[in-house]
């Protein structure tokens, strides 16, 4: 279903095909319904999905269902942004951050605690900020 005002065409672009109409300043506006706040949510959502699907092949829109968002296939990132691309081949890569030797040595030993696997230990009420779990486990083993 296309809103009544969407019947006026502005060209042959993808946006037009999904119901966009021209604005006085040369842009386009697209309203899923004439009064989208008045229609049932199910209808609004169904129309939103349908229009997004129709416009997907244009590559104009990004996919924001993922984190970070997936870039639209035809989107050229705007210039002047902070660099985020990986360094090109041959360029010097920054060194990986080093962790303290004590931490590194605890890997693959019982001293190393993976993730939050701390069953049987009650840390409630304890300020653990700035303390690594390995140190807590190591300390508790020493005391027992």
């Amino acid at each position, binding site marked *: 279903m296309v809103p009544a005002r969407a019947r006026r065409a502005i060209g042959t672009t993808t946006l037009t095909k999904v119901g966009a109409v021209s604005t006085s300043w040369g842009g386009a506006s697209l309203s899923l319904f004439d009064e989208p*706040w008045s229609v049932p949510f199910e209808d609004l959502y169904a129309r939103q999905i349908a229009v997004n699907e129709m416009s997907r092949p244009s590559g104009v829109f990004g996919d924001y269902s993922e984190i*970070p968002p997936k870039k639209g296939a035809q989107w050229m990132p705007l210039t002047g942004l902070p660099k985020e691309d990986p360094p090109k081949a041959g360029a010097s890569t920054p060194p990986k951050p080093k962790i303290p030797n004590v931490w590194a040595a605890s890997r693959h030993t019982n001293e190393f605690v993976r993730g939050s696997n701390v069953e049987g230990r009650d840390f409630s009420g304890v300020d653990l900020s700035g303390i690594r779990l390995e140190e807590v486990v190591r300390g508790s083993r020493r005391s027992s």
Partner: protein
Amino acid sequence: MPSAPTKNANSSNIAEVYAVLFVNGPTKSVAAQSAILDALASDPETAPTNGSLNDRKRAPFSSVTLAADAGTKIGSPIFWRMKSPKYWGMVDASPQPIARILLKYEDFGPRAIRPVWSGVARLVDRLQPGYVLLHFRWINPIRDHAASMNGMATKALEYSRSAPPGVFACTWFRPELVARSARRP
């Protein structure tokens, strides 16, 4: 788990209306901030009543003072409209090529949505942004509501890198984007 919404008029379930506008930057200047804040102040539906760079300091709104502060000091303007239709909003004061204007209308009756939509449409006509979305946040949102709102909180940097987040209840596009949509992969 919240129950599925009944299939009835949408407006009574709408808690907030979001208007998100992406304008060309940079906006870290007194002139750019003045243009945006004056446009906001010139319409009865979007005119702020209070504003400052500090979200704890709701000083009476003055586009001159706020633009001068935002253009020269650290921080971006935050502003409020304390009378109907109430909203709070913010404008990026940023050296980036894209800046975001966010208006979040809340605490309104179902009949207030049309005037809000009209006010945002007039603001769009004045600022001619690159991309604008107007969408809703529903009371007790379920998964479909969340999916419908996906991308609504997009920030300027994400927009710049990843493209606009899609089509919402109302969406506006600038000519460059319209032309871009005509390309074929």
